[in-house]
């Protein structure tokens, strides 16, 4: 090949290359990059601040909120929609002898009435399936639903509830969680024990720790039941269409869990259920599971019309989950200088009538109950028990706020008795970088002491000796 033809060849190649690359911007790479994602996860070092920290963002949905245009469940309506209301038991523990819905059924405007026996699988729950949608034989707490009504207006539905007659045979109620643990206590879900979940965290030897301690302190702390009180009450719309497909619009945080619970209670394939989670007007842990949805679905099936159900504020308190009240017994062995040598804890969680997220709460409360302190000898035992009260479930922190109140109050008591500054006793015992937690987890990014010092500095804490 002479020089001339070589140049021609090169020019031809260049032209072809230019043509080929003319639409390069539009093409996808011919081959997937070998490493489409970094194998090493991109995690910043502990306490390193990224540029996002401190930046202000506006909520993408804030505009519609401010305009009043956000559509929550109660702002939706469908043609022919009915309103559902649920009759509540109003008695803590009872056997249902008779339910007579005939007077309600013949009321003008009442389209359907539903009782617990009509629900294909009348139990649900995220942990144990111990909660009936509507109770059929036994009432477990006063907020239990006994019957549901769908009517053309909410007012007619309310009136219909008054026409439903329920005869109860009262049963002994269990209201004190500590008494509920005793063998001779009446059983909420007979014949099983009222204790339905336990957890024990054991580290070192508390007996040995107490023996070595100069002083031993004991204290009992208890917290009360708390309702989430999200501003938007629990609300849902069920639409069972003629093809046997169910659409639920619900103010719910966990649509996949809701879908499986619905499939279970209604005994229908999950593929026939569509859950549309709308904007939630406050959750705080209280809208993580289904409540009235299966009843609404069956009312919709009975009537062939969409059915809306919105809880009243009263029902929010009596018939939805709440924060666990916990009775917390602390026993702590310390040296005269305030160093904690051993801590024994017993937590009794009042679980209410149903489990809901109790075992999650129990676990977290138990693990966190010794507090953020280096203690070589720990024994924490936690029990959650059934009582005939409103069920308890998930709420911000899953048990952490309760035990925090207890161990910090206990620390203050110890500091006062020993004549040590409350800040000092915490600095003496608090976790350091690499400290093992009571369950043996080696902790990193530990800034308890820095936080305490900074906070004390900011609000002007001075030792009051």
């Amino acid at each position, binding site marked *: 090949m002479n020089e001339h033809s070589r140049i021609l060849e090169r020019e031809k190649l260049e032209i072809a290359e230019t043509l080929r690359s003319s639409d390069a911007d539009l093409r996808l790479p011919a081959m997937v990059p070998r490493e489409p994602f970094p194998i090493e996860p991109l995690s910043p070092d502990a306490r390193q601040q990224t540029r996002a920290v401190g930046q202000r963002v506006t909520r993408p949905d*804030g505009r519609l909120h401010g305009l009043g245009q956000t559509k929550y469940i109660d702002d939706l309506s469908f043609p022919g929609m009915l309103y559902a209301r649920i009759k509540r038991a109003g008695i803590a523990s009872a056997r249902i002898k008779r339910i007579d819905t005939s007077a309600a059924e013949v009321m003008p405007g009442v389209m359907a009435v539903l009782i617990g026996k009509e629900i294909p699988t009348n139990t649900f729950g995220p942990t144990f399936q111990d909660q009936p949608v509507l109770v059929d034989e036994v009432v477990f707490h006063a907020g239990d639903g006994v019957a549901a009504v769908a009517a053309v207006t909410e007012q007619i539905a309310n009136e219909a509830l008054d026409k439903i007659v329920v005869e109860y045979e009262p049963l002994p109620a269990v209201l004190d969680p500590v008494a509920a643990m005793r063998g001779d206590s009446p059983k909420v879900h007979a014949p099983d024990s009222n204790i339905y979940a336990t957890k024990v965290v054991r580290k070192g030897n508390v007996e040995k720790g107490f023996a070595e301690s100069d002083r031993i302190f004991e204290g009992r702390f208890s917290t009360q039941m708390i309702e989430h009180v999200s*501003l938007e009450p629990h609300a849902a719309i069920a639409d069972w269409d003629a093809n046997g497909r169910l659409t639920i619009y619900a103010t719910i945080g966990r649509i996949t869990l809701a879908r499986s619970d619905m499939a279970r209670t209604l005994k229908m394939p999950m593929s026939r259920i569509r859950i549309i989670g709308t904007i939630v007007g*406050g959750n705080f842990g209280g809208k993580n599971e289904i409540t009235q949805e299966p009843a609404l679905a069956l009312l919709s099936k009975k009537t062939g019309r969409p059915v809306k159900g919105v809880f009243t*504020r009263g029902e929010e308190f009596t018939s939805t989950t709440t924060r666990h009240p916990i009775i917390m017994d602390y026993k702590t062995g310390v040296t005269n200088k305030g160093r904690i040598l051993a801590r024994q804890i017993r937590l009794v969680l009042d679980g209410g009538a149903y489990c809901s997220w109790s075992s999650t709460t129990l676990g977290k409360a138990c693990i966190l109950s010794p507090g953020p302190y280096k203690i070589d000898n720990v024994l924490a035992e936690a029990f959650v028990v059934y009582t005939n009260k409103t069920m308890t479930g998930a709420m911000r922190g899953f048990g952490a706020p309760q035990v925090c109140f207890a161990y910090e109050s206990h620390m203050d008591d110890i500091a006062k008795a020993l004549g040590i500054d409350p800040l000092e006793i915490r600095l003496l015992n608090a976790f350091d970088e690499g400290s093992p937690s009571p369950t043996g987890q080696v902790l990193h990014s530990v800034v308890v002491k820095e936080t305490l010092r900074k906070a004390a500095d900011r609000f002007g804490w001075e030792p009051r000796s």
Partner: protein
Amino acid sequence: MTDVTMTVNGQIRSASVPPETTLLQVLREHFNLTGAKLGCDVGDCGACTVIVDGQAVNSCLMLAAQADGRQVLTIEGLASRAGLHPIQKSFENTGALQCGFCGPGALMSAKALLDENLNPTTQEIRDALSGNLCRCTGYTKMIEAVQDAARLLREQSRTQLTHAPTEATAP
């Protein structure tokens, strides 16, 4: 049935409703203005707050018939074609709205306050919002938002006074 006629957001609206119908029900169900929310139905939470003749009221406690012949302003009447109302702007910018359910009520209480007083103290803002419960924000952002809105409105009224010929402010 009772016939009620009222001016809602500048428009004359009427409906024929059962006498026990509340103002909130008539707004939501008959006029399709779902901005005001039903939170408690007993006047505790303030999610249903609207402005009737310049005063913030819990519309769940007011009968529709009581609003007959009066001026009602709801959250839907706050923004105009020109844009968001300064209160809406500042609530959005400060992050005073989280889940948003209490928002329309809180905004209307703030509006009623700022219509009366363009220089509210923090305590006056707290008092004005005391009937509006919120579980998300802890109220601090809302108070900031109202202060911010007050500043915007003061600037607006100054420019209007100095430059523009007097123009009736939006209802």
